[in-house]
């Protein structure tokens, strides 16, 4: 057996540039795409840059906290900032997001406090935000199942009869390249397609499903799968925040207008480990990581801003300082998170009181009260 004999399916390598929607090159050059025009002010670009740097810094802090034993685990978004910020900033208030467990930057765009995310991975809450308030569903750990939830939700919006109006919303389901091998994802493609549901499937193809490379997942580029289900698919440079913004905006508008689903494949790279419990040096080569480093999503925006004279050193220093300040505060707040109360587990099982849960709660309270010290209410 050689590695070569089982790897390297045809046609899954790097695509010709024409297939990849790109509006900002790794060198910071602005390019146009006929299908995806993007009007963006300098202020907006600076805003995107600030977003990118901030979420990377938050992510870094979370990884460090995990290494210090303060979080149980963390799924780093390093390298995928542009895909998440670009798509996240394309959303409007009426849209609903169904994330995986790595969409920290999308959560940031939806004003979910990063501390909530840390609490989740610290094991002191189950998310702790109201999905309705933020238009951002709770993190889904099970691979791909959120695509079904998102499809169902989209079909609900459709049945509200609001599509095409000002109140129209769409759903966006995030998932990774590995999830495309799941039945759930394929089922949701079928439903979304035949019901023409207002949904955007946003696949962050970061090349690795934990240790499984893309070429073991698919023999065709992932975005081409959409065609078989009967809706459009597009591959976008996932490290290009402009392209991710433009393509997602257009796809969402398309969905809100009642024109059905779109699959966006954001072609990107997971620069870090799958999670903090993973060691990528065991299955991939340094050279591959290095080649992607040159395509860093943040550097290219910085180069663009400098080249266009839209930002100076003071701006970049300020962004860095602000991100560091946020991270320091986040660390402090994380360490101060209280342990959950034992009885809290009964609180959100049902929306309304339920006799069986109430009974169990009473029994558990009595059990906790049966100890000599440190009874129930600590």
């Amino acid at each position, binding site marked *: 057996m050689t590695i070569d004999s089982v790897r390297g399916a045809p046609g899954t390598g790097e695509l010709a540039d024409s297939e990849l929607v790109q509006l900002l090159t790794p060198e910071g050059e602005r390019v146009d795409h006929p299908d995806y025009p993007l009007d963006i002010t300098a202020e907006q670009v600076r805003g995107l840059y600030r977003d990118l740097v901030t979420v990377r810094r938050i992510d870094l802090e979370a990884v460090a906290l995990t290494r210090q034993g*303060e979080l149980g685990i963390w799924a780093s978004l390093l390298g995928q900032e542009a895909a998440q910020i670009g798509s996240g900033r394309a959303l409007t208030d009426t849209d609903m997001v169904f994330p995986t467990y790595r969409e920290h930057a999308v959560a940031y765009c939806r004003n979910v406090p990063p501390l909530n995310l840390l609490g989740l991975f610290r094991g002191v809450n189950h998310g702790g935000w109201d999905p309705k308030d933020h238009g951002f569903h709770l993190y889904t750990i099970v691979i791909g199942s959120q695509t079904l939830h998102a499809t169902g939700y989209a079909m609900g919006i459709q049945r509200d009869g609001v599509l095409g109006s000002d109140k129209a919303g769409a759903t966006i389901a995030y998932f990774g390249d590995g999830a495309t091998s799941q039945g759930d994802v394929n089922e949701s493609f079928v439903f979304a397609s035949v019901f023409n549901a207002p949904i955007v499937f946003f696949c962050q193809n970061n090349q690795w499903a934990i240790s499984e490379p893309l070429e073991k997942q698919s023999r065709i580029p992932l975005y081409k799968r959409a065609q078989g289900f009967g809706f459009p698919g597009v591959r976008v440079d996932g490290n290009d925040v402009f392209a991710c913004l433009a393509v997602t905006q257009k796809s969402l508008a398309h969905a809100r207008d009642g024109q059905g689903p779109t699959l966006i494949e954001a072609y990107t790279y997971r620069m870090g480990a799958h999670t*903090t419990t993973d060691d990528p040096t065991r299955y991939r080569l340094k050279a591959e990581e290095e080649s992607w480093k040159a395509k860093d999503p943040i550097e290219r925006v910085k180069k663009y801003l400098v080249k266009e004279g839209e930002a100076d050193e003071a701006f970049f220093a300020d962004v860095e300082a602000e991100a560091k300040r946020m991270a320091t505060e986040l660390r402090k707040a994380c360490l101060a998170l209280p342990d959950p109360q034992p009885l809290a587990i009964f609180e959100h099982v049902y929306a309304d009181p339920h006799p069986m849960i109430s009974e169990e709660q009473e029994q558990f309270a009595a059990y906790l009260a049966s100890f*000599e*010290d440190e009874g129930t209410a600590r």
Partner: protein
Amino acid sequence: MSERKQFKLPDVGEGLTEAEIVKWHVRVGDQVEVNQTIVEIETAKAVVELPCPFEGTVGELLVEEGTTVDVGVPIISVDVGADGSAGPAPSGGAAAAPAAEAAPAGATPVEAVPHEEVPHEEVPQADEPGVVQPEQPKRQPVLVGYGVKPGATKRRPRKQSSPPAPATPASSTPAPSPSPSPSVAQAAPAPAPAAAQAARPAPTVGGSDAASRSYPQVVDNGMPLAKPPVRKMAKDLGVDLSTITGTGPRGSITREDVQQALAAPAEAPAAASGARAGAPATTGVREERIAVRGVRKATANAMVGSAFTAPHVTEFLQVDVTRTVETVRRLRELPEFADVKVSPLLLVAKALLTAVARYPMVNSAWVDAPANGAGNGAGNGTGGGAEIVVKHYVNLGIAAATERGLIVPNVKDAHTLTLPELAWALAELTAKVRAGKATPADLTGGTISITNVGVFGVDTGTPILTPGESAILCIGQIRDMPWVHEGELAVRKVTTLALSFDHRVIDGELGSKVLRDVGAMLEDPIHLIAWS
């Protein structure tokens, strides 16, 4: 005034219990910042760098490099300045801090030393009214970072009187009538086996947990406590559960208990409860179970895959290598080899490379047709579409025993290297492997291998092929032997070569030629010059 804080080894990988300190990145006296990398550790899963949780001056490195420590053990102390730049104000930690400072530096790290960064650890139990157990360790945080250590947990004491109505401790079934309180249960008359269990002295195996427990050992139905899989296991093994003292939670019988009972069958049926009581304490561990993981697992899979896929043939040849040993000695004196280790392995490697050049087929791989896209390797196919891939390059694998287990890194494009280059390549590979720095690239893509069992003081072996290769050369120890040399009996340096090869690819004739030529080149390195 500064405050000394300790950083305990966290569980960085979901349920790991220990890690090795591989390399410190800081020294005592160094200034450290929050999140500065201070140490590299290796867990069962990965080598990871740990960032410092404090800002301050390194006070002490509590664990030496190369030492494996349990999760939760303090590994470094940092003197944090009065500005308290690290972490939240130590509210509850105020009481605990003096204790930590009072502890002598370098004292054996103990669980009780609080990690002051974590608020929920700061609750000093001694401050609670009514707690009169000074020896009880601080509560173990279980949410993140530090898992519960087996044996280190203690049950909180229950109130003596039975709680009112619905609470039914120790029983999952909501019985309508309150069950007797635990203390009563032990004394109360119960069905026969239960009485026997209750009368038994508390088991010592389970440590403090078992000793302090006040639950009845059996439930009302008279059956010993054991989970269904354990019951099935005991049934399958013919072990009577009622003869076993449980060491699990609430005295339940665990798999280990059943295995231990099986390992000591003589004692078990000997007599009733009285005789049994002493048995577990005096019996040493007769068997040990080691989970198969990591390199061990990878090795096992590779060996099974190879041994049961490629039909192996092994041939042997005893060789007088006196001249090779002499050549090695003389090479060492040459300036080209001044700074690099020269060993007989170098000439063995060169001889094998030369043999490969003469017989390329030996440096090849059997590749099954990629039928069904299964992609699970060589499979067991012997026909349709299979190919023999002859490699016109040599990535020379050198089997190496490391602390993590057997690995076979390879020297890339070894066929292009001059002898000094090959010596350097081997030396670098060895150093890398010793340092645990072999990368996946080093470990994959080999085309033919050498295994040197001679270093272990044995003569030969029947090596199993590295998966994906068709031949492996084994060299044994070189030792003084009586040998017929130039018609006379003489004491010569003799070694045994063994060559295993994949008979699907290589026939006996080819294998024999390769082995014979390698032997000839080692017997007289003039052949090495002649053929290379």
